[in-house]
């Protein structure tokens, strides 16, 4: 216990230096924990809004359909797929959609859009179309049409206005035109959705495209979202064949995957940078404290203290500093994190990867962030203390004991 007491006393001897070093370590720890919380917050927000808004957690579609959204690539043998989905334990809900590019014409303007044929009841459990509705009522009749608010503005239409939809049928390749009435206006947030999407009844869309019972995509929500990206999920194996593809959201949205990867990479770099700076500070400060005590070490060594005892003392001192910094840092990070979770950090609105990130970003604080960063900091401090400890252990008394100006 003597060594512990000694280490304590040594640290307290120069409180200013100890405090500054601890401040450096504490700041690095707090920044690391909070940054990590921010990144987790943003990633979750992106994934949530992506999967919840429209795309679902997984999709079943015709091979090649997602490359160009060519309406002629539809699933025609849908009955067995419906059975499989209805019976699967992992699947919480699914919905069927028909998609086609089309032209919408109002009395004033014409716009090229993407039409989604949807079943309103099924969509409730899968997407946020219902929640995105800012005006009017959901689709109940074959002539109902929902569209994004900025698209409505461009076409200069409101609730109840007439709109002509023109597209070409998949089978027969005929030009088909049909009159719809605007029954509702949607606001999803991302301009690419509000600008160019319109929704009509699933059966009406099937009729227009003349694809019988065909479907372009089954959109799936799972009981447990993490399962969506398991490549060998039994559901996927059961439905996949030459014609049919099934993928989780990570595969469907490679740019989000790339972004999550980049975020992870950024986290690593940030961590390394922070701790590199902290490590340099620690080494510096320990050396300083050794220089100051050179005479002392030389004397203790001269009267028989073993080298490794001195080394151990130095390492113990840095461990104590690390522990104190972790204790303070964790507390600060907890309170600041808690505050930010409630209030958010305002940077300005962003739209990334088709997802609107609101003005105020809220971090997500997890116990792991605190644990990992703390372990990392303690380990790193011990590691950096080795070099000065070795130096101190190897002091030659005869040389060190000579004093100069």
């Amino acid at each position: 216990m003597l060594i512990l007491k000694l280490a304590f006393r040594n640290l307290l001897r120069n409180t200013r230096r100890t405090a500054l070093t601890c401040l450096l370590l504490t700041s690095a720890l707090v920044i690391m924990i909070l940054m990590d919380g921010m990144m987790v917050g943003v990633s979750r927000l992106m994934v949530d809004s992506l999967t919840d808004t429209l795309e679902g957690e997984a999709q079943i579609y015709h091979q090649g359909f997602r490359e160009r959204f060519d309406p002629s690539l539809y699933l025609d043998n849908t009955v067995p797929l419906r059975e499989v989905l209805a019976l699967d334990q992992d699947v919480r809900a699914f919905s069927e959609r028909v998609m086609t590019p089309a032209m919408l014409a109002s009395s004033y303007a014409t716009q090229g859009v993407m039409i989604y044929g949807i079943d309103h009841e099924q969509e409730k459990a899968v997407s946020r179309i219902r929640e995105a509705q800012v005006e009017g009522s959901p689709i109940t009749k074959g002539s109902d049409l929902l569209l994004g608010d900025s698209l409505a503005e461009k076409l200069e239409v409101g609730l109840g206005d007439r709109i002509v939809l023109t597209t070409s049928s998949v089978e027969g390749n005929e030009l088909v035109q049909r009159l719809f009435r605007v029954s509702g206006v949607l606001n999803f947030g991302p301009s690419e959705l509000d600008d160019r999407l319109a929704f009509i009844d699933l059966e009406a869309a099937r009729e227009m495209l003349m694809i019988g019972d065909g479907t372009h995509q089954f959109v799936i929500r799972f009981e447990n979202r993490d399962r969506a990206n398991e490549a060998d999920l039994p559901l996927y194996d059961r439905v996949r064949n030459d014609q049919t593809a099934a993928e989780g959201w990570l595969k469907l949205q490679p740019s989000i995957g790339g972004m999550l990867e980049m975020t992870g990479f950024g986290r690593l770099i940030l961590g390394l940078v922070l701790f590199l700076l902290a490590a340099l500070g620690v080494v510096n400060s320990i050396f300083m404290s050794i220089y100051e005590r050179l005479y002392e070490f030389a004397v203790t060594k001269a009267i028989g203290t073993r080298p490794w005892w001195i080394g151990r003392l130095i390492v113990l001192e840095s461990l104590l500093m690390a522990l104190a910094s972790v204790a303070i840092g964790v507390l600060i990070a907890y309170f600041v994190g808690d505050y930010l979770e409630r209030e958010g950090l305002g940077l300005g609105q962003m739209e990334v990867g088709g997802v609107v990130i609101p003005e105020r970003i809220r971090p997500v604080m997890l116990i792991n962030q605190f644990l990992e960063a703390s372990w990392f900091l303690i380990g790193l401090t011990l590691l950096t203390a080795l070099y000065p400890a070795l130096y101190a252990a190897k002091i030659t008394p005869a040389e060190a004991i000579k004093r100069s100006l």
Partner: protein
Amino acid sequence: MLELQLAWRNLLRQKRRSILTGISIAGGYFLITFAVSLIEGSYGNMIEIFTRDRVGHVQLHAPDYRVQPRTQRVIRESSQVVSSLQSAPNIVGVAPRVLSAALAYGEEKSSPVQVVGIDGQLEASVTHLREKVTEGIYLSEAVAGPNTPAMIGLGISRALGISVGDGLVLIGQGADGSIANDLYEVVGVVGNEKSSDRMTVYLPLSAAQAFLALDDAVHQIALRLDDIGDASAAAEDLQQQFPNLEVSPWQVIESTFYQTMQADREGNKFGLGLIIFLVFIGVLNTVLMSVLERTREFGVLRAMGCRPGKLVQLVALETVMLASAAIAVGLLAVFPLVYWFTNVGFELADPIDMGGVAFSHYRGMLSAYVLFMPMTLILVSALVVSLPPGWRAARVRPVEAMRHY
């Protein structure tokens, strides 16, 4: 000169401490410069790409056209407007355009498309459309034949199964409400499957004006300036000159992206601030320690008649010298990296969509700002950090200080 020599000797006396402090300063400089270079470069590159792809630096429209693009909302007497714009000294390219949605028919299939009427020569002065031709020839190089030439995006080529030499029928609605339809001959295919204009048909300006019954009117005039930094100011000047039109710089046209970029920059500034803060504490720690350690020395200096002001000066000089040397090292290390990123950079496998603009390349920027801004920042903070310890050194009482070992 004496001070310089003294400061230099003091730095060399404790090489290890100087080197360690130097490393944290050099590391800080390296990181800040590299980060600033990447942020400026990647956004600069992105802006260059989309302004060159379609947007231009400034756009002119009829009032309200941007929000509600009715075919009738046109810029009248466009040739006069174009020639008066061309005579402006800071405008290097003027591209008038006619825009509309239409249905395109190939042999068997049909698809909704965007029709853009362009003057081939003028368009090339604003965008890289000519370089995007992958098959066939550029619009203005087509020899006059029986059919009007047209260029199509790769998406249309795939969707309709047509290519160079094939016929293309467009059906749309003219400004006067009439049904417009005409036959065109595909002379070129532009872009790839990810291009923003994959579903666009380019027609000669006069042909598009005839198709939509527009006479000499156009919907949009895109400008390229000699310096993109002037976009906002130039747009304001032009607004004075053309009070009947709506003049918008790219920041307004791509406002979602611009907002996202600004917000992201805010976040980055925040991160940079934290790194600087850590470097700050690290330097403060070492400078303070080196001063405390030399209490006796300063006492001797004071006893010999050195004025307090001189001591402050000496400590500040030491710190600034150390920082300068460290920055020189940091500069040597970071320069090749920034140079490589500026000239080569790397491309993301999956571009990230940012407010409707694809973020596809990591690029650096090599400029005086990128190199000198962090330099000034660090030198100034080093100077500030050195003042309190210097002040402390200046106030020591020689009698007490010389008792200090």
